[in-house]
């Protein structure tokens, strides 16, 4: 048997629905149609009345999930694309994120954001929004990079009593396959050493983990051992695992598909600089997408985001210092 990243998302939702009567799925076209990406394929049939088409109203979709969560439900919300979550931003950052701290009533909602770029998707169907959500207290932001993680972390997201922004990467939907679904997983908030190495630490998350791994494979042929850290969740961010890796390698590159100003890579570099300055043998660096909207044409898009090639160039540069 082999299962894709996208099928794992569907399987996790099927299991959540089967295991917990408080779970329901709400979003545009998620019902009989099975979702724009088919992440809810057949679920409406298997779980009648619990996988529901929503009107084109992101604010109301998320607002309603908050109300349902207060009443004890555990909604899974599908945004058709991460980019459209900005139309529900107010409910996410001002309502869901503040509810527990203000009222001591938990807000267990999972908001699935089909995230990140694919060739030809353009400015409004490609965004990586983890940094925007991570800046707000009260939200957990997951960025799974593997089939195993997307499955176990989605189940974990539904089980957690807090709002979870679940950034699933569209590029990985069909590109990643695993032999089987996992039976155990790292706890939320724990990063993973995706590849051990002693020369440099490359911190990445989501689709960038695979660009980093491809780069590491290439550099291994030249005798360079790259350690790749997969953050898994960007909030909470596992600073300890990153620092422990930098302690072994003395060098750091943080890679993200999001824009350069602030964000996850800036946070990683800031933490290592503040808390592990003495561990560094060279200045830490970051590699992000370019400072423009995400371009439409594949030629432009392929250069806009970091790739194995551009990561390799940055790594070689750091290793020369």
């Amino acid at each position, binding site marked *: 048997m082999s299962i894709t990243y996208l099928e794992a998302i569907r399987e996790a939702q099927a299991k959540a629905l089967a295991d917990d009567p408080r779970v*329901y799925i709400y979003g545009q076209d998620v019902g009989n149609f099975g979702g724009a990406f088919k992440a809810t394929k057949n679920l409406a049939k298997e779980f009648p009345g*619990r996988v529901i088409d*929503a*009107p084109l*109203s*992101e*604010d*109301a*979709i*998320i*607002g*309603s*999930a*908050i*109300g*349902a*969560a*207060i*009443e*004890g*439900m555990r*909604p899974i919300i599908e945004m058709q694309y991460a980019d459209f979550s900005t139309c529900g931003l*107010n*409910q996410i950052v*001002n*309502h869901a*994120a*503040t*509810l*527990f*701290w*203000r*009222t001591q*009533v*938990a*807000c*267990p909602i999972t908001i699935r954001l089909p995230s990140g770029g694919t060739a030809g998707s353009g400015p409004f169907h490609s965004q990586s929004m983890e940094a925007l959500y991570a800046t707000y*207290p*009260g939200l*957990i932001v997951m960025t799974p990079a593997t089939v195993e993680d997307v499955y176990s972390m989605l189940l974990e997201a539904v089980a*957690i*009593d*807090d709002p979870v922004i679940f950034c699933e990467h569209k590029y990985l939907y069909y590109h990643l396959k695993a032999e089987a679904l996992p039976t155990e997983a790292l706890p*939320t*908030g724990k990063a993973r050493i995706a590849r051990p190495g002693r020369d440099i630490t490359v911190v990445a998350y989501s689709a960038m983990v695979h660009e980093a791994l491809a780069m590491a494979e290439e550099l291994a042929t030249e005798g360079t051992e790259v350690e790749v850290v997969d953050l898994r969740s960007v*909030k*909470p*961010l596992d*600073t300890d695992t990153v620092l422990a890796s930098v302690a072994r390698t003395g060098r750091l590159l943080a890679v993200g598909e999001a824009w350069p100003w602030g964000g996850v890579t800036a*946070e990683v570099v*800031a*933490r290592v*600089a*503040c*808390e592990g300055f003495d561990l560094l043998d060279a200045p830490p660096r970051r590699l992000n997408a370019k400072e423009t909207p995400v371009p439409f044409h594949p030629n432009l898009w392929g250069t806009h985001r970091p790739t194995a090639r551009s990561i390799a160039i940055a790594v070689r540069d750091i290793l020369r210092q």
Partner: protein
Amino acid sequence: MSPHKLRAVLQALSPTSSTKDTGLNREKFRQAFRWMLLARLSEEKYANLYRAGKIQGGVFIGKGQEALSVSVGISLRKGDIFAPLIRDQAGRLAFGESLLDATRTYLGSRLGPMRGRDGNVHRGRPREGYFAMISHLGAMIPTVAGALLAKRFKGEKDFVGATCIGDGGTSTGAFHEGLNLAAVEKLPLVLVVANNHYAYSTPTSRQFVCADLVEKAAGYGVEGYSLDGTSLSECLEVVGNAVERARSGNGPQLIVATLLRLGGHGEHDDAHYIDEKLKQSEVGRDCLKLAEKFLLEKNWGTKAELDEWRADALRQIEDAVATAQREPHPDPNLDDWRPLATQHLSEGHHCE
């Protein structure tokens, strides 16, 4: 006939108004009047304390809107959802909030429902169906809709959710999205609009151009009513009827009450911009005075009773203020400063 003089049940949809328990009755009117009185006097007290510099944060009061607000709170029952807004002291009390809870928040006691983490009109006890508004107008409409969806999922029966908003709030996207979603799901949502002619300083002419906001009901395919928000008897009847229609499966109900805010947007505001002609018109009448007159004329209460009710309300307020003033304020050293229910996933501080 001016729209606010007419209790216009939307012709196209013509819901009937006679259901059990909604008609005007003596006991309900007297009870509603007492909540209005307590709301008016307690908010006057908060306003005085504000001027004396004793209040944490701002004070936004519902003076002139108590008849409408109380009608919402009193028409709901345990198991229902209520998401009040900034001018709903009367409805909050009638729905079951204790005066001490309200007073604690204004005076900054850490024993209040929000423990100093949020203030005044943002208070609530969501677990008891009494939702705590966020400032962003319109946001509570889809939230209440979702709570009703959840009750349906859970197999509960005979429940209603009500929320209030102003004329300004009807212009938000959330108002549109929330009411439309509730209509699509045919949820028992009662949406109460207080058209008090101003959103802060902005007159309705800069807010919308339809003749009466109740026209929106037809657009959403829901039942709608417009009424005179200065008349307690009319508010009790129309709101009570709408709540029962929602409860018995007739879908969302839009109520638009016409009235005037009898004061500033908040206590910081002198309201100099309010049209003098409006103040002098029937819209500008004080619902509390009208209700008192009605009560006496109907012989539903005596002057002596009214005096006793007022004295009782003042006693309750003095007690609540005295208690709250003795209570400790929040201590930053005692707050856990953790925003998540899942404590161990809250991030610590870095780079400090």
